């Protein structure tokens, strides 16, 4: 049997094992350094639950809302699948933000890991896009107007904005074709993109090795531990904790359904999902042009931060400016978010 298999599948399992079993630095025993893995795990939860939702969801303006209501109220455990999908989306964004912060404040984006940072930023953006496009599928008032505002925001981008907006809307205005396009983005384009980016991201992490940090209480421990089985067990323990947490949240706060989308009337009180509060508040504070250009600049600055950081370090070799600016940026985003949340 073994012989039969190895003839048809000529893989050297010992080599494969030594290839995949990379030594992991000691600090990854601490869960907050394994947040990238947490996000990846949640992404697979999204793939699983999303695939299930597809069995009942109908991407047609006249029926989308009813199909989601059906999922939530009639399909056995539909509310559970939908709630897991929703909470796991939020969790994925939380994990990615925390992961970004930890990478930033431990300087792990510096040479030679600049490209890993760039790919990571793209992953964050793609995930925010998945959250937005996914929410628009529900076709309730808030999600419909959120999608409208966003597609018009895309249209206000300099240079290729109008072109891009027509592409994602399927027309000059948000219309019946728009839901189909957001659907395709949500269930095919973005997940495929994320999968690809995750592969590149992880390949880069493996090539450079995880940047090492030593803690005082770890001085007597070996510097690294094996990926298999030790780190896999850490990840599995984290996964179990998260699954429990998601289930508790899904049961106590199941995904709700608002009013059906009405293209003729924007509701009195409108607000995006929490992860876009900061952008929403920012758009209220600025003119359209500054609002759009500011957002684009912030995103570009973030992606190119390794280069900016290099420049800063040449300018001021003694004092580290990056952490200060990082704290400032985090404070701005957190403040805008809180402002929107309490207003």
């Amino acid at each position, binding site marked *: 049997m073994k012989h039969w298999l190895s003839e048809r599948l000529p893989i050297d399992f010992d080599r494969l094992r030594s290839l995949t079993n990379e030594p992991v630095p000691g600090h990854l025993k601490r869960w907050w350094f394994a947040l990238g893995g947490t996000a990846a795990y949640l992404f697979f939860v999204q793939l699983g639950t999303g695939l299930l939702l597809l069995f009942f969801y109908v991407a047609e303006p006249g029926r989308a809302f009813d199909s989601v209501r059906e999922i939530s109220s009639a399909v056995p455990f539909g509310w559970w699948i939908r709630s897991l999908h929703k909470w796991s989306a939020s969790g994925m964004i939380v994990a990615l933000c925390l992961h970004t912060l930890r990478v930033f404040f431990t300087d792990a984006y510096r040479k030679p890991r600049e490209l890993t940072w760039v790919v990571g930023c793209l992953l964050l953006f793609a995930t925010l896009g998945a959250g937005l496009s996914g929410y628009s599928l529900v076709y309730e008032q808030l999600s419909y107007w959120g999608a409208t*505002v966003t597609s018009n925001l895309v249209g206000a981008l300099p240079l290729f904005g109008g072109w891009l907006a027509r592409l994602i809307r399927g*027309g000059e205005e948000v219309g019946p074709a728009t839901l189909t396009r957001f659907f395709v983005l949500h269930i095919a384009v973005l997940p495929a993109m994320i999968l690809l980016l995750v592969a590149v991201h992880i390949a880069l992490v493996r090539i450079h090795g995880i940047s090492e940090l030593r803690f005082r209480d770890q001085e007597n421990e070996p510097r690294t531990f094996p990926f298999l089985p030790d780190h896999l067990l850490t990840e599995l323990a984290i996964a179990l904790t998260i699954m429990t947490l998601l289930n508790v949240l899904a049961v106590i706060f199941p995904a709700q359904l608002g009013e059906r989308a009405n293209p003729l*009337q924007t509701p009195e009180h409108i607000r995006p999902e929490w992860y876009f509060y900061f952008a929403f508040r920012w758009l209220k504070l600025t003119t*359209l042009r500054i609002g759009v250009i500011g957002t684009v600049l912030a995103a570009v600055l973030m992606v190119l931060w390794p280069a900016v950081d290099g420049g800063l370090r040449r300018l001021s070799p003694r004092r580290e400016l990056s952490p200060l600016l990082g704290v400032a940026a985090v404070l701005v985003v957190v403040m805008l978010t809180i402002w929107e949340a309490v207003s």
Partner: protein
Amino acid sequence: MGLSLAASYGTAFAFALRFLFPRQRLARRRRVYVARTNELPEGGSRELVDLEGLPLVLLRAGGDLIALSTVCTHLGCRVRWSAREERFLCPCHNAAFDRSGAVLSGPPPRALSRYEVAVEAGNIYLEMKERSA
């Protein structure tokens, strides 16, 4: 060799792009009857939907008939008339427009757009684009 590869893949790509982009026909304009003048007394208004499915409001203010699109010029939410504050309010990013559509406050870059109004023999007509589909 390189040239022909580029040409054939390029053509396929161009067709795919063409497939993805909505047809942009030159929208034809049409004049549409919407109301009789005596149905709109001073201060009166009427909510309508144009041929493209976009909402608008026809109102008489200071003797003039004005037809304003209620699509906010900021990011496309629907503004609504607040009788109490005597202005159009946009719920999305707190914009306000006056009765004539001019921006009073908030982020919108320009006034609400207007439809051309024509009155003939007591009938009110609006100039609007045909649905482009």
